[in-house]
């Protein structure tokens, strides 16, 4: 769980940096997207590894949840979880399920048409198409709302998940743990907030 989480945290940063380029420079975004979309190593090695990482994380999450639920067959009549733990830590399954829903939507909405465009229809590579496509996608307010809401859930998931992953692999030390926790908190807020900013930025600029 923790290892796949750390892998996905790194992937998220990479995804964010590329998306952020669409705000900074149209050319940089186009050339990076073209590289990511056509490079054989990324398309045929890294992409399957990513898919495996995502699937592994979700499947392990479901197994963990079902085992943990069966560890307490009789529930408490009165349970005060908020007295000793954060809402985020107790509801990872729900924030995770919401993110899974978003990923399914994202794959259907973005990844499948992209695969279809490149490999099934076999369209010629067009290094200039990406920026326009992003602007077109975020012109739709419903898509922007879905994105924004999903990233709020991602932030909630990361607020617990980031530091929890380090604890699970035993990386805990009085010298470094406060820094890991503080960095994790900023990461969990800034990265999803950045994704929301990018979606809203294109929505506002694309509708001029």
């Amino acid at each position, binding site marked *: 769980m923790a290892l796949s989480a750390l892998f996905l945290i790194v992937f998220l940063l990479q995804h964010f940096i590329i998306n952020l380029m669409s705000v900074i420079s149209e050319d940089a975004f186009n050339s990076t997207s073209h590289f990511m979309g056509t490079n054989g190593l990324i398309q045929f090695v890294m992409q399957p590894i990513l898919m495996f990482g995502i699937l592994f994380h979700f499947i392990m999450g479901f197994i*963990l949840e079902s*085992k*943990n639920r*069966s*560890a*307490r*067959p*009789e*529930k*408490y*009549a*009165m*349970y*005060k*979880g908020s*007295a*000793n*733990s*954060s809402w985020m*830590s*107790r509801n*990872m399954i729900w924030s995770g399920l919401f993110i899974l829903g978003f990923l399914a939507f994202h794959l259907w909405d973005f990844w499948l048409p992209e695969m279809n465009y490149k490999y099934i229809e076999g369209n010629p590579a067009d290094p200039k198409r990406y920026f326009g496509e992003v602007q077109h996608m975020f012109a739709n307010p419903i898509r922007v709302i879905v994105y924004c809401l999903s990233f709020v859930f991602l932030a909630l998931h990361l607020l*617990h998940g980031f*530091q*929890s992953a380090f*604890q*699970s*692999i*035993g*990386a*805990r030390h009085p010298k470094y743990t406060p820094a890991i926790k503080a960095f994790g908190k900023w990461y969990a807020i800034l990265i999803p907030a950045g994704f929301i900013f990018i979606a809203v930025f294109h929505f506002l600029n694309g509708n001029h």
Partner: protein
Amino acid sequence: MDLTLKIWRQKNAQAKGKMETYPVKDISEDMSFLEMLDVLNEQLINDGKEPVAFDHDCREGICGMCSLYINGQAHGPDREITTCQLHMRSFKNGDTIVIEPWRAAAFPVIKDLVTDRSAFDRIMNAGGFVSVNTSGNTIDANSIPIPKHDADKAFDAATCIGCGACVASCKNASAMLFTSAKVSQLALLPQGKVEAHERVMNMVHQMDEEGFGNCTNTGACEVECPKGISLENIARMNREYLSASLVSE
């Protein structure tokens, strides 16, 4: 003060239990929670009813016998105490108090509020010890120099009284805090290092066998632990387990 108690009553391990309501009157705020239950039991006995079964022994916070999930929290609302150290001044006149046994598949209810915590004993039997030759040539433990820092950490871990509040508080009914305290206590000392790999593998295996849940690092156990056992022990056990998994045959 006058209180309304809602208590889990269950005749035996096989019976289906249910919550029952009992009023108690004239409870002193200086009483411990267990003394309040003693008052209730005297009242029940005088009425010709079955008293409420609950675990207790030393009544001074060191034996780990008293359990009780009180108003949604292990050992009630206060911090770093057992139920015998919880006083009625934590409640006010007219309160309704919900009292339940520890809930975990690995801690089945024997009767009313008494649960079978022998799963902890079996985890200890799986590796919570140091094998020493007791033929008469045993070296005095104090003759081995131990850094003060390590000795303190081992002692902190050793203060675990095995009450099970960690399991009861954890939303996953995980026994990681208990097991990790026992693993840490020995892993930190030179005498325990010899069997460290075997120990952590066997104890974690037994913990899983008993049907405890998995740790998702909510931290509830650390907050509710009457002895303030730190999550640092869980991280240490995770490290011990990872390194033992890599080299064990």
